[in-house]
């Protein structure tokens, strides 16, 4: 079911085309139903070097359920919490707890450990919830994360020392 949905023009083909337009390499693991995208954001100061980021998306049960999006360790892909996340500017989906907080992010829902107990039904994620972000396709969601990363001001916490 998920694979059939992904093959629809507005999902994986559009996401891959979106990445190509921006010169990005979006990787899709068909067996694991997973996406990965490396991004670069500004450093914390104008003198600081750019910060590397990696976004991971787990597509199991998409699009009945929203994608499990995370920023992960850009070196290893490991879950490292807030250190993986860019520090946002303005109205943002990037929560200070190290969470992508949007109706299209499965981990934002309280039933999945997120902070939104007011969002009850995971299957209702495509219903617009003004004034929240509306991003019904993979590429819309990636575009939002891309733009927030590019507008960020360094990462939320320093990367841990690599093992």
């Amino acid at each position, binding site marked *: 079911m998920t694979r059939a949905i992904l093959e629809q023009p507005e999902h994986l083909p559009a*996401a891959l085309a979106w990445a190509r337009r921006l010169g990005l390499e979006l990787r899709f693991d068909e067996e694991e139903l997973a996406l990965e995208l490396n991004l670069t954001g500004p450093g914390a100061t104008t003198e600081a070097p750019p910060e590397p980021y990696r976004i991971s998306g787990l597509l199991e049960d998409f699009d009945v359920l929203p994608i499990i999006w995370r920023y992960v360790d850009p070196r290893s892909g490991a879950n490292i919490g807030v250190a993986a996340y860019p520090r946002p500017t303005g109205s943002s989906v990037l929560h200070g707890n190290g969470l992508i907080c949007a109706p299209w992010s499965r981990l934002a829902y309280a039933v999945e450990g997120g902070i939104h107990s007011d969002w009850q039904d995971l299957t209702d994620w495509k219903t617009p919830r003004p004034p929240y972000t509306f991003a019904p396709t993979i*590429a819309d969601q990636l575009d939002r994360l891309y733009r927030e990363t590019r507008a960020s001001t360094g990462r939320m916490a320093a990367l841990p020392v690599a093992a």
Partner: protein
Amino acid sequence: MSEEHGQRAEKQTLHLTVYAPKSTEPKTFDWSKHLAVGEAAAEAAAAFGYASGTPSLAKGDEVLDRAKQLVAAGVRDGDTLTLVDVGGGV
């Protein structure tokens, strides 16, 4: 209408290419340079089949102010823009 007048009238219109993340192909629009970014974005969103949201337009990395006229937001004839949603999170 004289040729000179015709040219002046043409300059009031911007011929723009807009990409939407959900579509592999862009669409083109001819908009008055005085149209608000938000209104233009709403028209583009409808054309691409977005049912709702808070659409705006981005020129490169810069997301344009929905309240500004296209010309005031720095949009120029022939530009390529991206449709984005600026709804909030958290």
